[in-house]
């Protein structure tokens, strides 16, 4: 066994040991442990990766070592930032915002008609299960090369999960709570604002969380079918072509980071908004 691999395995074992200790110690539910344990786990994975790459002398054009990726990352922050703006800020976020807003509004509109709800829910459920990603080439040809087509792909991808979840959520207020509103002779709008929307929030956020990961993947894949000369999908694709696999990994790291932050943000807002839900009560 070579030194790098030996060290990597050792680090792995040590990290695992520490994690086992931490996870079963009295303070195991503290925020600190919740952050440190996964970080240590991730660090161990990266060290193991580095060790394996060094030990087997894997060609950097196939799988670069994390250290190399890190150097590339530092050296290419400008490119990464440009790509991040194009793909995440313009394509994914705008598409996400539009798609989610339209889906929630549609859900509210549909919800007034029991007939529409009964018709659209199965259809929506079905469409949500479809490989929508396949329409990326069509939407790129419809909406052009810039972020608009990426946003369009994202809109279509996030629309149905959010719609279905919201419609589901709007039905969530239980019969007794609705009856209560009836005994007050409350109007439709009052019932919607004061009861059904708040009660739907856990479901809406469930949809919104699913949508975050879809948004990023959609925006990146759509760039494969045409893009300006910037964007994460663009960069990943051309970097594979020129064997700059280290840059590919740097982009992947940015995507994962952006995706995690995005997801975390939505989850954070969810905790704020649905503080009252049993899963969030302290």
């Amino acid at each position, binding site marked *: 066994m070579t030194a790098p691999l030996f060290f990597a395995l050792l680090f792995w074992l040590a990290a*695992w040991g520490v*994690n*086992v200790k*931490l*996870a*079963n110690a009295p303070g*195991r539910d503290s925020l600190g*442990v*919740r952050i440190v*344990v*996964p970080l*240590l*786990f*991730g660090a161990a*994975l990266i060290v193991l990766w580095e060790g394996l790459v060094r030990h087997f002398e894997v060609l950097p054009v*196939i*799988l670069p070592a994390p250290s190399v990726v890190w150097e590339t990352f530092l050296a290419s922050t400008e490119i990464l930032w440009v790509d991040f703006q194009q793909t995440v800020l313009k394509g994914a976020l705008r598409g996400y915002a539009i798609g989610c807003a339209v889906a929630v509004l549609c859900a509210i509109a549909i919800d007034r008609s029991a*007939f*529409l*709800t*009964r*018709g*659209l829910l*199965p*259809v929506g459920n*079905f469409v*949500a*299960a*479809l*490989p*929508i*990603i*396949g*329409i990326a*080439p*069509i939407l790129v*040809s*419809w909406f052009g090369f810039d972020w608009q087509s990426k946003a369009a792909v994202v809109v279509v991808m996030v629309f149905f999960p959010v719609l279905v979840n919201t419609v589901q959520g709007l039905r969530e207020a239980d019969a007794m709570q609705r009856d209560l509103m009836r005994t007050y002779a409350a109007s439709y709008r009052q019932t919607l604002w004061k009861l059904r929307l708040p009660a739907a929030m856990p479901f809406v956020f469930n949809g919104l969380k699913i949508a*975050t*990961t879809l948004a*990023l*993947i959609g925006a*990146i*894949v759509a760039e*494969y*079918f045409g893009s300006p000369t910037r964007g*994460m*999908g663009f960069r*990943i694709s051309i970097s*594979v072509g020129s064997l700059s*696999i280290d840059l*590919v990994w740097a*982009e*992947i790291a940015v*995507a*994962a980071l*952006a*995706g*995690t932050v995005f*997801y975390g943000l939505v989850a954070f807002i969810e905790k704020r908004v649905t503080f009252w839900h049993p899963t969030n009560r302290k």
Partner: protein
Amino acid sequence: MRKALPVLVVLAAILGIWWLAVAPMNIRIALDGAERSGAAVVPEGARERQEVSVWALMARNPDLVPLSYAQERPRLPTPGQVATEFWDTTGAMALDGRAMSRRSLLFHAWITLQSTFWGFLLGTSLGIAGAIGIVYSRTLNLSLMPWAIISQTIPIVALAPMIIVLASQLGIEERGVPKAIISAYLCFFPVLVGMVSGLRSPAAAQLDLLRTYSATPSQGFWKLRLPASVPYLFASLKVGIAAALVGTIVGELPTGAIRGLGARILIGDQFGTPLAIWAALFMAAILAGVLVTFLDLAQRVTLRRMGLAEAAR
């Protein structure tokens, strides 16, 4: 019937909107074509028309609007065109006895289905194993769960070429394997999440009951946690199979367009035959529908057998 009617109405509405959208979507290329073959088009010249909105073009060339519905390479095909193309590459070929010819969508659906199946199998096994690990080990719970979420934010397409190369380094030449791996990658997450909630679904009192019997952990798993998780399992399997299908198609798009629906979509794009893309998309939709319906049936049968179907009501 009471259930089907609203769905049919919604589907009819969707078809109607689609059909109406064909005219504005295709009017430009329709007018370009008409002009080339000598028809009088207002305004003249493709470049000049670029400046005019599609609605104005339709209003000023009412006679030529029907041409939008008869384009060979439409931006948006009519439902009829898609249906015809779909039938030509499936049913018609099957009637000819060429169902499994390479030109038949059935053949490609079969290829995609196989990868989906293996990916689903692999992803589900990983998801279930992961869930068991997470439920039974605090350490795994704390370390794995955040990374499972992060793993889903990685653009899997970016990994596709590397998966191919790594697979071939490990001596796997078959290109179906990378597809199945990508498919499994997307499939495992919903199964993991669903099974974690499923395995954790037994109430504290149910667990305590087993403790009063001083049951072993494995008895607790087989007699309580596993059966209790079955409804969750099926719910996540349905999401998982859909994800596996998406994964396979994403895997087929860029990684060596050889066979499968994703490859058809890619080739349809490359050779400018939109009808082929649409037909492949419909095939993918049908495949998804069939797979989910199949699991839904399996769910109903299993839950009824287990007496859980009515209990849930």
